[in-house]
């Protein structure tokens, strides 16, 4: 009875095609945005913002990117970390060589560079499919990170081999570099995520998103009804990498401050982002965000929970137990709900529609 669309009549095509056609959804999203923009920065402290919320927001953006590629276009990729690294290094080169460049513009432009890299490494997808493609994208992962590590030009030949975000301002507020406050960085990453999610939502329900899904469901059939596999797959790679690239730039500039290529390692970034997409639900934008929340919060919960109930373990043992529980939870979760958190959310809505009179 809380989630009932009865009586909500649509009187125009615009209303019929709204992203959130049901009034309850609109209220829910509005409430969520108010909480995110007003309540969270008001209540959260520096530690929470830096250690939990900002990485969650940035990785959620990357997860949306990967979900476009894997969830909507059906091309499994393990090269997320590499595309994020392309974004981060492109942003670093641009901001250090052109100091006057607006930093938001630099973020978006680094997305374009990542998209170019995505197109190059997406080319094999025309010939190879499934797990062959997944392993082939590992070539991108290892090659690109090796390149950034080896060629000094990418990190301005600085002796430590790290890239460091220079301080940059937006509307007179420092948003990158060591002196930027956690709140400022929070607002930047949140805004990028919100805009990114809205754009992605619109993309996937438009012509281009439908062609991605057609290719995913059966590429030969899609080709027969006139969808060009070349363009469709490459746009999926490009747009997905664009998101990853922007997320990568934010990862360094807004979250870490400075990093080496190891920050974009396979096990550090590519796998966790894939977890987020699958746990969240393949082919769902909201799912990518929920999956990101789950995967970033889970280890923190596992680390802090035993001390809270009075169990103190050696760090080494604790780490291994965390690993076991994390792995076990993934398996258990997949058994319970292979379609991810997005599907659970859908089921919850169905239940709410009937509750408390389920007949």
């Amino acid at each position, binding site marked *: 009875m809380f989630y009932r669309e009865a009586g909500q009549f649509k009187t125009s095509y615009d209303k019929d095609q709204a992203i959130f056609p049901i009034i309850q959804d609109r209220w829910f999203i509005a409430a969520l945005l108010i909480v995110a923009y007003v309540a969270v920065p008001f209540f959260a402290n520096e530690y929470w913002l830096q250690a939990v919320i900002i990485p969650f927001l940035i990785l959620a953006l990357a997860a949306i990117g990967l979900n476009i590629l894997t969830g909507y276009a059906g091309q499994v990729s393990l090269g997320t970390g590499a595309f994020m690294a392309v974004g981060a290094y492109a942003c670093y080169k641009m901001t250090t060589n052109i100091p006057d460049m607006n930093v938001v513009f630099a973020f978006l432009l680094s997305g374009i560079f990542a998209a170019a890299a995505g197109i190059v490494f997406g080319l094999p997808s025309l*010939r190879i499919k499934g797990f062959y493609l997944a392993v082939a994208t590992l*070539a991108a992962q290892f090659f690109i990170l090796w390149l950034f590590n080896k060629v000094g030009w990418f990190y301005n030949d600085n002796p430590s081999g790290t890239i460091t975000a220079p301080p940059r301002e937006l509307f007179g507020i420092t948003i990158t570099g060591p002196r930027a406050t956690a709140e400022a960085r929070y607002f930047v990453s949140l805004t990028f995520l919100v805009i990114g999610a809205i754009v992605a939502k619109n993309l996937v329900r438009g012509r281009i998103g439908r062609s991605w899904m057609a290719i995913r469901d059966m590429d030969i059939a899609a080709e027969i009804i006139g969808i060009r596999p070349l363009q469709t797959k490459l746009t999926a790679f490009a747009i997905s990498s664009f998101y990853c690239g922007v997320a990568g730039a934010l990862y360094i500039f807004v979250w870490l401050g400075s990093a080496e290529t190891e920050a974009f390692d396979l096990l550090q970034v590519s796998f966790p982002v894939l977890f987020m997409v699958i746990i969240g639900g393949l082919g769902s934008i909201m799912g990518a965000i929920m999956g990101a929340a789950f995967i970033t919060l889970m280890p923190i919960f596992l680390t802090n929970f035993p001390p809270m109930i009075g169990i103190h373990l050696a760090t080494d043992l604790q780490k291994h137990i965390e690993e076991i529980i994390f792995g076990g939870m993934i398996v258990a979760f997949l058994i319970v709900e292979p379609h991810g958190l997005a599907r659970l959310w859908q089921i919850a809505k169905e239940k709410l529609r009937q509750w408390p009179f389920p007949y």
Partner: protein
Amino acid sequence: MEFLNAVFVAPFLDIADSPVFFAEVVIGGLMAGVMYSLVALGFVLIFKASGVFNYAQGAMVLFAALTLVGLMEQGAPLWLGLLVTVGVMVALAYAVERFMLRKLINQEGIILFMATIGFNFVLEGTGQIAFGSDVKRLDVGLPDKSFETGGILLNTFDLSAAFIGAVMVTSLALFFQYTPTGRALRAVADDHQAALSVGIPLKTIWVIVWSVAGVVALVAGIMWGAKAGVQFSLVLIALKALPVLILGGFTSVPGAIVGGLIIGVGEKVAEVYWGPAFGGAIESWFAYMLALAFLLFRPQGLFGEKIIERV
């Protein structure tokens, strides 16, 4: 110009200069390739029979090696240790089937892949809690001496590794070809539903195939462990085996062997002769690039089944 010279001229001059050294590099590559093949073999077995892309194969190698080392540290003789470890791997296979595969039947490949990543974490954690995470020496009594034939330096350990690899592949091939179980395994690999309908018990087959993969993992673990010590980084050889897989084809046992040898030789030769031109450390990605370039011409790998698609 200098770069072009270093890529297209200098390496060949070097090869022509000292063919003996080149032969040594190739043989070294072949030996490394045998090791890759051993790991890739486990992947292929499981993928063939259950369509599961088992990311946890690397963790299984580590787990098997850790179990064996742990038992031997407790004073168990080698034969007992081997026996118990095989038992543990079979129990593990049973548990995987009972608690994971059975519940995920008929799910998409990526979901199963994801589940094996979860299983990978569980195995890594359990192995290290039970047996510690220090580097351990594993001594199974294989001779490790270097000797020279025709000016080429060889190592008895590498030779015995190659020999054991060959024995294992032959016995697996015979097992697949001539035993009733092997025939059932091939039937399942061909078509799950058809196999079920002629009365082959799918679940038993899965347990068998995961057990065989566990034993293969044990052999790989012994080889790698005796060579480089049993340590956490054994997990990462799974990543080395992936390009071998796509080169040879996911579904082909000979493919895993040939692919492993090609990758092993290619990697070593490239590192020695072309590495300097690129600033070294190209081993990390060379195998992948080689496999990728290869896939563009043969998308199903060397010996993989040709994918026929119908609408």
